[in-house]
């Protein structure tokens, strides 16, 4: 039964990585910016869940608060910072997003201190669901799996089936032509950044009860999310989905069964994928 538990853990971890990586890859694909501060947005979500759980006792409030707060935070960051950096050099973009990491970490330290905090699993999901004879699995982890799948499906339908989604795909492909047909590409950029931010914030809020909350919580997730994005193909949301599941499984099973080499496994996987397909599994071939 241990294997089943690890498979479910791998699925849950992979889906959480997808929420983070989808925003990262979408922002890169449409805006052309690699946002190093994406992990800080995840941290904002985790601390938001901690603060809400501590002050109200109602952790579920972190989801609507993360969605609305994330959209507002993302729209603000795009409007007042990122917008001015699309046509700048990559080095300037790196400096901007690195500076944001420092600002978010210092802000967190100033407001909430540097201690580790555990966030209790919401009472509603504080039980186990029997999955097989003699084996049950955390209801909260099932809830996280469900939330990630629902958000992933909503994101897919939004991008593939709506007019706004078509405009976003168009903007990722030929930004200039979007303006030429009379659409304000700046608004498209703001929407994409806001949604990407909200996904990272919600991922952080969902993760808080699982991993507890600590300084630099976003860093590890950011690095792994970059691996996900690179393997999936820069800018590809469906690539990020399959790649996140792959990484989630390899990392979780590796840590369970081959702990000595697990830390290396995903990077070896990334190198192998890049050797065979330099633009990632789902990337546009250059």
């Amino acid at each position, binding site marked *: 039964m241990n294997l089943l538990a690890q498979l479910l853990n791998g699925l849950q971890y992979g889906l959480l990585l997808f929420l983070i990586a989808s925003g990262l890859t979408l922002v890169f694909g449409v805006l052309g910016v690699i946002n190093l501060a994406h992990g800080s947005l995840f941290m904002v979500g985790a601390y938001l869940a901690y603060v809400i759980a501590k002050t109200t006792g109602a952790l579920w409030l972190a989801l609507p608060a993360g969605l609305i707060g994330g959209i507002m935070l993302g729209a603000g960051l795009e409007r007042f910072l990122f917008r001015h950096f699309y046509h700048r050099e990559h080095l300037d973009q790196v400096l901007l997003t690195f500076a944001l990491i420092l600002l978010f970490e210092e802000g967190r330290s100033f407001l909430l201190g540097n201690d580790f905090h555990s966030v209790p699993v919401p009472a509603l999901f504080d039980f186990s669901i029997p999955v097989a004879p003699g084996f049950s699995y955390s209801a909260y982890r099932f809830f996280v799996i469900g939330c990630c799948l629902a958000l992933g499906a909503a994101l897919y339908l939004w991008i593939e089936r709506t007019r706004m989604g*078509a405009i976003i795909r168009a903007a990722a492909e030929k930004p*200039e*032509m979007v303006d030429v047909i009379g659409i304000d590409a700046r608004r498209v950029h703001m929407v994409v950044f806001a949604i990407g931010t909200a996904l990272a914030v919600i991922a952080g809020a969902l993760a808080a009860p699982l991993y507890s909350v600590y300084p630099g919580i976003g860093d590890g997730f950011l690095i792994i999310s970059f691996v996900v994005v690179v393997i999936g193909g820069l800018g590809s949301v469906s690539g990020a989905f399959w790649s996140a599941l792959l990484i989630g499984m390899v990392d979780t099973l590796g840590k369970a069964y081959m702990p000595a080499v697990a830390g290396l496994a995903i990077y070896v996987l990334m190198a192998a994928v890049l050797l065979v397909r330099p633009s990632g599994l789902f990337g546009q071939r250059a």
Partner: protein
Amino acid sequence: MSAALIDARDLHTYYDDSHILRGVSLRLRAGETVGLMGRNGMGKSTLIRTLMGLVKPRRGTILIDGRDMTGAATFRIARTGIAYVPEGRGIFASLRVAENLSIAARPGIDGSVAWDIPRVLQLFPRLAERIGNGGDQLSGGEQQMLAIARALVTNPRILILDEATEGLAPLIRDEIWHTIRLVRDSGIATLLVDKTVAEVTAVADRVMVLVKGETVFEGRPTALMADADRMHGWLGV
């Protein structure tokens, strides 16, 4: 004579340090068809990109309906009723044919919806057959039809076509020229860049010839044709 929709005066445009447009002026009146001619690298596409706000002129002004739009954002210029089909077509390969049209469709500046998606599909029945296909699955001719259709569903007052027939099979070229005449006859002003002198001079009310970023001729097509020696010098034909 009606007022100019576009009145661009003394445009100077640079790419980095190279001086591409050297004081070009262009007027386009409602319903008028103007042919823009010249060899490769003489500034035709740069003039159009300057009019669309895709590059900013270093000097000169662009008036649209008498309002100064120099340096305005491209989407604002497009929304005054200017549709631009660039060289290379610029269709969205990652979108289906239907999506290419639906994200562009909007009423004209006067609220007109004369050109809606059913009408452009009637104009190009081949696009109707391909409506569910991806933009990357179209032939060159179908891509050009889609690019023109996408321009028309914005219900423009001005259609700018840059090399719309380049690299197409003769039958498809004929179909595109037929469409250009139809658009002209529907009252949309057209600015046309094309290398086929015979076709341009046949549809245009007026032609302009650019040489090294300057206007060397502006007038009726017949006047250009009458001066065969100079025309050969300017156009290399």
